[in-house]
């Protein structure tokens, strides 16, 4: 204990700055991409996909995005070193740092002071939310999901919808709770990122003057509003998605892909046949 305290103190400045940095890259950048991808369950409706329309197009678009991510090489290494370790580092240090805080909003009820306190609350809730989110959907701890849905990368949208709704055929009470937790969790995390971007610029000394801080604050506000819309679209989009018809779209896509794979394999087959016949012929 005393030793770990010594370590934190000896490397205080570096650790603090790494804590700030990891919040922006990779975690912040990832969150932006992640929310945009997940919001495809809404913008995919407008976009259309492969001749599909409406919710079907959204399901297909989302599936397409998930397929792309799962086609990345060494995905598990990217996840471990690019996400899980940075998030664990940011969370553990963040909780340690937050414990030294003495909120005094009752006496100094300034907006900035509420921002300060909310940054800490959103950190705590965010850690819980991310843990639940990753454990249930990525590590397959489906016993934590009402209805016991297991998320699957092949049936991305339908299983996501079922996880949020608590069943594969519409809302259950447990599903309402999960969806509410998602709304609160993502909203707080978006706030945490937007506010963190603002304060990081002060901590690193990028924005020194009051007017610079204000200008960057406006930019962060716009980023926050944009991400908030994406986050809400994603949660509400999945929470209101019809899991059964989404699964049909996904099954069709799988069949198509399998057929395409078959087609792709066919010439090879033919070639080997030819070879065979060549052999027999020769």
């Amino acid at each position, binding site marked *: 204990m005393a030793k770990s305290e010594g370590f*934190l*103190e000896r490397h*205080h*400045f*570096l650790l*603090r*700055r790494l804590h700030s940095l990891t919040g922006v890259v990779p975690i912040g950048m990832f969150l932006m991409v992640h929310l945009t991808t997940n919001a495809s369950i809404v913008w995919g409706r407008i976009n259309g996909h492969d001749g599909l329309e409406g919710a079907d197009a959204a399901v297909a678009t989302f599936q397409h995005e998930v397929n792309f991510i799962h086609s990345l090489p060494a995905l598990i290494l990217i996840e471990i070193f690019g996400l899980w370790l940075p998030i664990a580092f940011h969370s553990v240090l963040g909780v340690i740092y937050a414990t*030294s*805080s*003495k*909120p*005094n909003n*009752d*006496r*100094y009820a*300034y907006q*900035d*002071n509420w*921002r*300060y*306190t909310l*940054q*800490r609350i959103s950190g705590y809730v965010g850690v819980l939310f991310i843990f639940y989110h990753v454990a249930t959907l990525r590590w397959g701890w489906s016993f934590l999901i009402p209805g016991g849905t297991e998320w699957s990368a092949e049936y991305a949208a339908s299983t996501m919808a079922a996880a949020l709704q608590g069943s594969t055929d519409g809302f259950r009470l447990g599903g309402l709770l999960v969806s509410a937790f998602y709304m609160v969790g993502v909203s707080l995390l978006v706030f945490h990122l937007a506010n963190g971007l*603002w*304060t990081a610029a*002060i*901590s*690193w*000394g*990028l*924005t*020194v*003057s*009051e007017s610079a*801080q204000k200008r960057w604050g406006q930019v962060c506000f716009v980023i926050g509003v944009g991400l908030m819309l994406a986050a809400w679209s994603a949660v509400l989009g999945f929470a209101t998605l019809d899991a059964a018809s989404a699964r049909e779209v996904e099954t069709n896509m799988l069949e198509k892909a399998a057929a395409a794979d078959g087609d792709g394999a066919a010439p090879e087959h033919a070639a080997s046949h030819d070879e065979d016949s060549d052999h027999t012929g020769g």
Partner: protein
Amino acid sequence: MTVATTNGTAKRTAAANSRKVRFRIKRCDGPNKLVRWETFELTIAKGENVISCLQKIAANPVTTEGKRSTPVVWDCSCLEEVCGSCTMVINGQARQSCSALIDVIAPDDGDTVTLEPMSKFPVIRDLWVDRSRMFDALKRVKAWVPIDGTYDLGAGPRERPEEQAVRYALSECMTCGCCLEACPQFELAEDESEWDKSFIGAQALSQARLFNLHETGAQLKGDRLETLMGPDGVSECGNAQNCVKVCPKHIPLTESIAAVGRSTTIHAISKWFSGK
């Protein structure tokens, strides 16, 4: 002796020139002694401040319950908001008692003024606290211009008026402690050995910036930044920005914090590359 004042504005006009105000005061006889609350009632004349009221209480320390108490102890010196020694928590927020006018903070008959000592400094007695930690912090960040006085340094460096204007604002700090009292990251440390263990606070950060901006003072810039990169340094600030809102001298503390943040970033990077 106890006059139950009707709260409200009905009597306001009648009592305009001789209204009564209650003072709820958090009292403590000394370090580690029990805290108690006492209420006194005074007839207020126009233009009084908290200190003149404390003087009246000292002259006749009888509580609203009719109990004879002791004079309330507080600290003060300049009586014009330049020394900072009379700082206390008035109606929930830290400020100077000499410039806290009763006409402003308790304008109506029957109003109550609550007085407490600052909570982030050890209480010596009643409203009087020990602010030594702030002066110690000034030593830790070497808040001075290094001249040893044994030989003639010649003319000082030339000053640009723009920089002088920035420094002048910072130089107005009176070490009052409001910024520390209001800061959610600054905590009470009773014992001297604990002073460098938790956040040093906006006051010392801003003074470090002041002396880093001075041509000759900048000779100690590296030392100051090293101190402020420590566990109690600038990165302990959580950007709540209460400090800048409560500073009675309107010192741009959040700019100072960001400026020190910038200096430490540059210092750390150049140290990493040059080894110094």
